[in-house]
């Protein structure tokens, strides 16, 4: 087939991505500098007031820092919890491997609203965890598990754990088993093999898992909204509030852009620090 004809295959996707992704991203960037409108989503003129309002108000700065902290802690928690599971799942001789793999995938099949809802049942003041602990006589009052940063981190860790496990698992599966046998035969102990051989080889999977979870956690809305309630709000929740409840579109756009730039910057720093090779 000629070059021109094969190009037609790409045309629908190209049109979709340019018209409904690239152009809207340009327009949202411009719209973040619009003046607030009177009865319309935005006004005529241009201003940097939306950004100076964010950077000049400790409330928004603190909230953004807290959101970044939630993202970072969630990433770390999914890594610590997920790494051994990814290594176990990558073993070809594992019994019931299909079942365990299904369990890891299961959260993805259950809607994000439903999963967050499940956590509200577990974490609430009258929830499963608090009531069980009280019945066992371990605590007097309820532990503060919901409506705070801790609850959001717990639920987000659950929600995004598969996104950490799956990339690491596929990286580990790509490691030639003879590499670690070679290390063992040269006298390396098991912890040394893990630290010096397996972890470095699994690094690409670890890096993509970390970036994926961090970015998803930063921009997630449902889980922080349901678990944090009105008490703790992340930047993403405030963005949606600004867009829907108070109808301040340019401000919402500016806030979302600020969060995305912070997130993108952190990813670049992370990639530089871990000497990531982009693929």
């Amino acid at each position, binding site marked *: 087939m000629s*070059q021109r004809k*094969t*190009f037609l*295959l*790409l045309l*629908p*996707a*190209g049109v*979709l*991505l340019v018209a*409904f*992704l690239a*152009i*809207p*991203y340009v*327009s*949202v960037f411009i719209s973040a500098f619009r003046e607030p409108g009177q009865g319309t*989503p935005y006004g005529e003129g241009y201003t940097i007031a939306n950004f100076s309002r964010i950077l000049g108000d400790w409330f928004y700065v603190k909230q953004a820092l807290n959101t970044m902290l939630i993202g970072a802690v969630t990433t770390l928690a999914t890594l610590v919890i997920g790494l*051994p599971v990814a*290594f176990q799942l990558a073993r070809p001789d594992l019994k019931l491997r299909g079942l*365990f793999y299904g*369990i*890891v995938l*299961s*959260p993805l*099949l*259950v*809607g*994000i*609203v*439903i*999963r967050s*809802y*499940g*956590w*509200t*049942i*577990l974490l609430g003041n*009258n*929830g*499963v965890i608090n009531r069980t602990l009280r019945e066992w006589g371990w605590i007097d009052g309820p532990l503060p598990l919901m409506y705070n940063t801790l609850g959001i981190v717990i639920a987000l860790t*659950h929600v995004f*754990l598969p996104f950490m496990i*799956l*990339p690491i698992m*596929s990286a580990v599966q790509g490691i030639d088993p003879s590499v670690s046998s070679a290390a063992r035969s040269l006298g390396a102990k098991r912890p040394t093999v893990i630290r010096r051989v397996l972890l470095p080889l699994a690094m690409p999977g670890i890096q993509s898992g970390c970036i994926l979870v961090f*970015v998803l956690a930063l*921009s997630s*809305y*449902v889980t922080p909204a*349901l678990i944090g309630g009105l008490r703790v709000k992340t930047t993403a929740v405030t*963005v*949606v509030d600004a*867009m829907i409840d108070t109808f301040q*579109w340019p401000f919402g*756009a500016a806030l*979302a852009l600020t*969060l*995305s730039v912070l*997130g993108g910057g952190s990813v670049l720093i992370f990639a530089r620090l871990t000497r990531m090779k982009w693929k």
Partner: protein
Amino acid sequence: MGRNVLNIYCLAVYTFLLAPIFVVVGASFNAGEFLTFPPQGLSLRWYFTFFENEVFLRAIGTSLWIAAVATFFSVIIGTMAAIHYVNFAGRYKEAVRVAALSPLLLPEILTAIALLFFLYDIGIGTTTMFGLLVGHVLMTLPFVFMNVSASLEAYDTDWSMAARSLGARPFTRFRRIMLPLIKPGMIGGALFSFVISFDIFTISLLLKSIGTATLPIQLFDYLKTNYTPEAAAVSTLSIVATITVVVIVEKVIGLKMHKF
């Protein structure tokens, strides 16, 4: 010894992964007025309440409709792009891949806001379902692309050459050789696309028009003000439906997600 520690640790993680799902399912059979777990007596009353609740039924209808239409377009557009990517993209291969996966790489909340501004600017706004559909096609496209290109990578171009030397025209080669080989990838992609579309939240929240709340939106709205186990009943039915479909497709064609 080390093996056992690892196994116990992994079992704990699996429990953690399943716990919220079990709790929701358990709470749905609650006989009481309020959400408690373990349930106070078993009953199906909340399922009956749900079947009489038009709001939820309409939301499920909307979700199914949007997921079906979005999947239809996603599969066509994504399959075409994947065929180009694997066979013809040449030195632009990496650029095509990044572009096709970009809806997944960009923060969903910013994409939703960008689309909202854009729809308003071109005068459509959220008065029709157009924006909602476009958003769903965008978000599901990467999954079709990943699945189909994975099955295409395994496709040997010699087959096509052999057919060509035997006199098969391009369309016949596509229909008789390539299509049967990439069909599992397309079905897998369609399934992923459907499940993902059913779960899209932020895009649906910002782009929905009046009366087109999808199931996740309706459920979220309900949960903000209500604590009855009805939401658990709705959730349980949705979990059962999804798992049934996935298991059937898995048994019939076998799902493979090669790249993540």
